């Protein structure tokens, strides 16, 4: 994984493993901040149990690279063991020549065979340091072993210690100066111990390749990016009910939205949340809720009203493993069918899927414009992997305009014979909302006439169904075509993936292009409903084999591709409680070649 060029590394994956409460996540955060300041790109995806306390394992998993990474990486180059028994169970993900940083004087309450040092395989490299003792020396507690370990990492891999000092101060900016200084001391003790005692034999080397002191990059999660998108889209009303992994969006908005005049309501359940949001959308204000699959189940009926009554609103679904309560802290892309079809009747709505943290910002922001412009609910399909993974983001580089421009069509105040649901060529009828004079009208979930009166004739129903569908057809035409990569002309294999699996899809193409002569390309949509069928058909026509990769059991997007292209596709679909490893796609494609 770490490729050495001119004696300098480009890429390293570091995992900090401990029991819940050992500070693995905090260590990861400081590592990420320091790496970003040094000018590297960061992709971080932590893993922790659904329970708050107890003996669960927490792993902070950071990829630090000189080029922006597509995936967090499945294999780890360096494992930092804050808790030996837990770390032993993580050794399987270490590369064959990986580094283990361990406590050379582990806690004496572990059984003898539970010291990680005893489990290090031949070829792997172990660096021991008395983490616990040095921690006690600096802070009179074993709690800062995580920071001591960062000092060891800094020396061993050649990361500039100053960046860590700065990160420690930032991480605990709300705490006392003395606490920050004690932590800096813990870091320094680790660094100095390593300098004096560790004989470096691993090839990972970032020394003297610092890319400059970067201050405008932020380490943000997908949830944070989506929340910022809501703020920048001038959201007026957010109503939500706490649910993993979407809650963070609400917590951020609860703090920030009132500053710009918006309102956050914690509702009694998800049904109430979406109903408030539809009320807000009908009142002409940008309104949004975020939830996960179980919440979407509750919201489907009301969302269907928003389709029928053409009310703009945005629903963010941070998917998690299902069905039912499922796997609250594990990732899965299994709500695609629910997003597209979750409704009685046939209920066209827009479904957008960002592929990385930056896009969680861009696409969520664009979702509000699409909702207004097409007078429709828009579902943004994130998932645990996007919600909770962190990347370095430079806000000014994240341009939502990439995804087109969509305008709100409002009725003229003096309009005579105003018909809220007038039949138009585009399907979009000029909208008015409460407060706009002389344009009063009811909206309803009943099938209705252009005048919004209940109507049950077959002729009217057919025309209204077509009107609602035309809006989506227009969106499919106007949204930028799906991202297509790889050589032009015929391809041996075309890889299609969506949402958080786009990174693995693109990564697979890169790896395959490097190791085979085969012609490999890919298609990566962000608009997952309505489908841009022409682009998919055109791409499929160039491919001998089509592979669709996603993290669900049945291959939900593969089903759609099969429907559109009328051909068999190869599914790389797993519901394995993890982001899809690139290797699985690569292996499958190689089987086809």
């Amino acid at each position: 994984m770490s490729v050495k060029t001119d004696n300098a590394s480009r890429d390293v994956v570091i995992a900090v493993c401990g029991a819940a409460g050992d500070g693995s996540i905090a260590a990861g955060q400081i590592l990420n901040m320091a790496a970003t300041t040094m000018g590297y790109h960061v992709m971080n995806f932590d893993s922790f149990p659904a329970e708050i306390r107890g003996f669960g394992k927490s792993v902070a998993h950071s990829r630090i690279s000189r080029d922006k990474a597509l995936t967090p990486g499945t294999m780890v180059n360096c494992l930092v063991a804050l808790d030996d028994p837990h770390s032993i169970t993580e050794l399987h993900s270490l590369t064959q020549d990986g580094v283990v940083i361990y406590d050379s004087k582990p806690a004496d309450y572990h059984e003898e065979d539970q010291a990680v040092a005893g489990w290090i395989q031949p070829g792997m490299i172990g660096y021991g340091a008395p983490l616990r003792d040095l921690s006690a020396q600096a802070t009179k507690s074993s709690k800062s072993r995580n920071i001591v370990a960062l000092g060891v990492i800094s020396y061993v891999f050649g990361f500039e210690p100053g960046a860590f000092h700065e990160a420690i101060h930032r991480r605990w900016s709300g705490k006392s100066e003395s606490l920050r200084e004690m932590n800096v001391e813990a870091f320094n003790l680790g660094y100095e111990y390593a300098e004096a005692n560790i004989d470096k034999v691993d090839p990972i080397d970032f020394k003297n390749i610092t890319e400059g002191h970067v201050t405008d990059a932020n380490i943000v999660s997908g949830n944070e990016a989506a929340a910022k998108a809501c703020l920048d889209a001038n959201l007026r009303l957010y109503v939500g009910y706490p649910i993993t992994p979407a809650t963070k969006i609400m917590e951020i908005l609860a703090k920030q939205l009132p500053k710009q005049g918006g309102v956050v309501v914690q509702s009694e359940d998800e049904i109430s949340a979406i109903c408030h949001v539809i009320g807000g959308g009908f009142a002409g204000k940008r309104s949004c809720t975020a939830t996960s699959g179980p919440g979407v189940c509750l919201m489907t009926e009301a969302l269907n009203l928003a389709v029928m009554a053409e009310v703009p609103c945005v629903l963010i679904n941070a998917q998690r493993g299902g069905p039912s309560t499922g796997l609250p802290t594990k990732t899965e892309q299994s709500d695609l069918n629910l997003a597209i079809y979750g409704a009685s009747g046939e209920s066209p709505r827009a479904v957008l899927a960002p592929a990385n943290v930056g896009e969680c910002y861009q696409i969520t922001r664009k979702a509000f414009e699409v909702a207004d412009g097409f007078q429709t609910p828009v579902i943004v399909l994130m998932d645990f992997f996007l919600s909770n993974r962190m990347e370095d983001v430079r806000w000014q580089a994240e341009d939502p305009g990439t995804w087109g421009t969509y305008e709100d069509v409002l009725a003229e105040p003096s309009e005579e014979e105003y018909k809220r649901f007038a039949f138009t060529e585009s399907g979009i009828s000029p909208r008015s909302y409460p407060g706009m004079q002389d344009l009063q009208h009811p909206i309803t979930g009943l099938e209705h006439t252009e005048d919004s009166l209940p109507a049950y004739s077959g002729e009217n129903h057919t025309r209204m169904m077509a009107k609602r569908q035309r809006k989506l057809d227009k969106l499919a035409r106007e949204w930028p075509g799906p991202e297509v990569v790889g050589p032009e002309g015929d391809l041996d294999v075309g890889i299609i993936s969506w949402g958080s699996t786009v990174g693995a899809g693109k990564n697979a193409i890169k790896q395959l292009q490097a190791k085979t002569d085969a012609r490999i390309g890919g298609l990566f949509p962000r608009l997952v409903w309505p489908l841009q069928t022409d682009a998919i058909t055109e791409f499929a026509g160039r491919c001998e084999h089509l592979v669709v990769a996603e993290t669900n059991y049945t291959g939900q997007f593969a089903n759609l591709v099969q429907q559109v292209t009328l051909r068999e596709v190869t599914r790389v679909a797993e519901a394995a409680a993890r982001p899809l490893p690139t290797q699985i796609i690569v292996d499958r494609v190689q089987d086809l070649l």
Partner: protein
Amino acid sequence: MSETSSPTNEAPLLDTGVERDLQNVQESGLLDYRSESLPTWCPGCGYYGITHAMTEAINELDIEPHNLVFVSGIGCAGRYPFFMNAYGLHAIHGRAVPMGAGVKIANPDLSVIVVGGDGDGLGIGGGHLSHAIRRNVDITYILFDNGIYGLTKGQTSPTTPQEQITGTHPYGNPDMPLDAVTLGISYRASFVARGYAGQQHDLTPIMRRAFAHKGFSFVVVYTPCVTFDKVNITYENMRGNWKPLPDDYDDGNILEAMKYAMDDTLWHGVFYEEQRPTFHDHERETAEKARS
């Protein structure tokens, strides 16, 4: 609403006094709040009386149609927005209260009136009532209580008395009925009233107070379903057992309110009113705290 298609501009009427009455109605401004669609309720339905009382109250308060939003759920009362000249949100079953709250929170300048039946508000949507009350969103919720599911033709509702025979309980309803007024008081709604569709001159002032109240006002209106309920809330049964709250009644005393609400006599009037900060007041404070 356009003048030319008003129901009063039909062929000239004989001089029976009706013409004069209609002229009075027309001049009153009440018709400004009516849409071109005529109500689809059964002849004799109590909803006509409620509609009239509501319209009178809105007219007296001079709320402009474009700033007025009716939100309804599903059921006979759900159709209400179609018959009014205002913005209307005919929502899904049981969710009118949170939808109405969303409208009001998004734009507090609007007057939001939620209407719905006993099934909509106490059955499928029963979970939302307590929370809207708790939040004290400044909307009025008028619960049309006819003790039956009318639109689906006569099934048991949450307020149908025990033992009543209905389409879904041909051997008698086994479930104890809920009383919306005592619920509203026990949740401590900042305004709780009970009215009767058959007595408009009492109902209009209740409505006026409810609309003017700052905070969540909850008005329960007993209304006969002449088609599917021949035994419970009928015009005949309501006569005699229906009394206005005493002149010296203290509507600021919640224990008294509960006592009168639970009494065998059907008292009507405003049981409880309390001025306390609304959701919107809290939001203004939140915004200040967030900015400082």
